[in-house]
């Protein structure tokens, strides 16, 4: 899946060594350190992590929505063009027409003093040159597409007149209005009820499939990611510590953090009599990362080498990697266990 240099292949979005850093009182804090990924057309990529992992900042960095004092490094290549080198005006065009974003809290992302129709129409007209009438009918159409009932009437409603799930659908409509290629969804359903969340994710899945979009879904919820994504990357302390196709990740996790995280989820069939499996300690602060492997203070399998030496990326097969000194051994073991269980 890695694009060969110079030729624009089906890899739509290539991120190379993206970093976000802040200066604070003579310290440099790097909440995102060297993130690289490839996003082909139609791919659904999930970036999963807990708070402090840097996943939301990564999303904002890709859309270039971070301003000083944040500093961005690396490259973000959209069809070969580095977004980090574009001017503000050019980037604004990219945001309108090629790449869009859905945010977590629809109440604060939608402007409460304008009708939703006005906001969607605005997005449409920024993206393409259409008349007001054409924009309005396109807006009604996209509202219908996202499942808002009576779209021609509701287009003139204000955000506060919708429920949370409906507002999120409106946001999705706005994000789709520019006929974009890439959609970044930053915790799109975290603020919603469980049943509404399920419906919105189902909707997103359908719409993304119909339009052949590439999606990056940022979430802390491994269940939501399992239901939506083809490929998952796990983020910890600013780096992607594991990447795998979705079935592999959940059945054969390699990195100790991924394994521990999956184990810590309280599931419907958990054994009530057993204590929950926890991860000791807390995620590290961006400005106070441990030496060596950033996970080693919390890792049940850490050895001396983990304190001294930061692990490099170990490739484990097509589209699989993990950042652990023992990645190969762990992968072999979990593959053996799984195939043993299957036989």
């Amino acid at each position, binding site marked *: 899946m890695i694009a060969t240099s110079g030729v624009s292949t089906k890899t739509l979005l290539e991120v190379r060594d993206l970093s976000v850093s802040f200066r604070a009182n003579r310290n440099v804090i790097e909440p995102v350190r060297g993130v690289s990924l490839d996003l082909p057309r139609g791919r659904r990529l999930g970036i999963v992590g*807990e*708070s402090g992992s840097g996943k939301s900042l990564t999303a904002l960095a890709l859309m270039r929505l971070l301003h000083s004092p944040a500093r961005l490094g690396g490259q973000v290549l959209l069809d070969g063009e580095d977004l980090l080198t574009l001017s503000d005006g050019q980037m604004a065009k990219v945001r309108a027409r090629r790449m869009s974003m859905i945010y977590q809290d629809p109440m604060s992302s939608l402007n409460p003093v304008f009708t939703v129709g006005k906001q969607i129409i605005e997005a449409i007209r920024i993206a393409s040159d259409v008349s007001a009438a054409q924009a309005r009918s396109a807006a009604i159409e996209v509202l219908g597409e996202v*499942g808002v*009932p009576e779209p021609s009437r509701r287009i003139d409603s204000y955000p506060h007149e*919708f*429920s*949370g*799930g*409906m507002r999120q659908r409106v946001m999705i409509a706005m994000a789709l209005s520019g006929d974009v290629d890439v959609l970044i969804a930053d915790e799109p359903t975290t603020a919603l*009820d*469980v*049943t*509404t*969340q*399920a*419906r919105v*994710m*189902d909707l997103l*899945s359908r719409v993304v499939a119909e339009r052949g979009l590439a999606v990056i879904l940022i979430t*802390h*919820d*491994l*269940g*939501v*990611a*399992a*239901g939506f994504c083809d490929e998952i990357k796990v983020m910890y302390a600013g780096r992607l510590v594991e990447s795998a196709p*979705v*079935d592999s990740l*959940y059945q054969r996790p390699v990195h100790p953090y991924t394994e*521990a*995280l*999956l184990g*810590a*989820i*309280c*599931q*419907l069939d*958990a054994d*009530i009599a057993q*204590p*929950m*499996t*926890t*991860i000791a300690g*807390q*995620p590290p602060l961006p400005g106070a990362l441990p030496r060596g492997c950033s996970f080693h203070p919390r890792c049940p399998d850490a050895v001396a080498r983990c304190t001294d030496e930061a692990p490099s990326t170990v490739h484990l097969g097509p589209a699989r990697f993990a950042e652990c000194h023992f990645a190969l051994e762990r992968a072999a073991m979990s593959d053996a266990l799984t195939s043993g269980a299957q036989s």
Partner: protein
Amino acid sequence: MMVQSTPQTGAQAVSTSSDVIVAAEGLTRHFPLAGGASVRAVDGVSFDIRRAETFGLVGESGSGKSTVARLLLRLDEPTSGRVTVDGNDLFALSNRELRRQRRRMQIVFQDPFAALNRRKTVEQIVGLPLSVHLGLRGQARAARVAELLDLVGLRRELAGRYPHQMSGGQCQRVGIARALALEPEFIVLDEAVSAVDVSIRAQLLNLLKDLQIRLGLTYLFVSHDLAVVRYMSSSVAVMYHGRIVEMGSRDRLFGDPMHPYTHCLMKAIPIPDPDQERANARARAGGVVEPDAVPVEGCRFRHRCPLGALSPRCASEEPQLIQVAPDHQVACHYPQSPESVVNVVSTAAAAQQSIADPASSSLPSHRSRG
């Protein structure tokens, strides 16, 4: 532990009154809106919580579960109904008696940072109940606070920190320490583990269970997360728009859910297993889009219920809680297991008939799996 001999008027007898520590009877809370209408946040909710058990209250936003939690602690006044603690009416207490009663009942809130006064140190926050009720100051208070921090697994040095200098998990532990300061018997956990990361949530759940065993605590565990409720609770009630729609022991409710809303909740839980998720997505396909308004007449769930559209009874008559097993109640005219719901709907669709009569052969009304 006194045995109260005053009978509970009207309420269904689920247990003997001696081991019930907190009981809600017909609890109702309406919020008046401009123009005469009101939001029926809590509407006739009754349940008993037994000593040393965990009672789980499940619901989504708008269900009224947080309002119930606050009513149980008299942090809000009901429109009607009672809350009894050891048989005594909580809302009949004088202010002085109430303040004394508060020592026995505490609460842990959802947002770890908002629940702590941002201008106070941990020592001041956890020490507040100690000052108010026990008059502790200075060294004596600091010593007791240090003990409490030990109890919840925090380092003693954190006593001098401010909330914004700590993580969400640490702040939540401070909230728990504060709740434990006066050695209460009953603690309301209002979404207490919902706003923290998964790994921290696991730690907090272990801590809460451990404390319950060590200190003999009774919990009301309010949450929207069914899996966590199941892990923590021995009895569970499911709320929808102000009413309890299903209630029973944990094993019965999770083993044999009978209300369509409970089915809906279970299908919607995201599961970290791609195959299961795909299956759930298929099961959800074709579900009803959530409406914005709740019907005023009849069953509140009928617009979202696969059966609701088929029956005139659902539109006219609000279902009451009926006993379907010794420890299982459901508020539905046609309670049944999820599989049979699917059958009923497709049969009715094929026959293009509406459900006129609960005795009609195509629609079972009370059915529990053997």
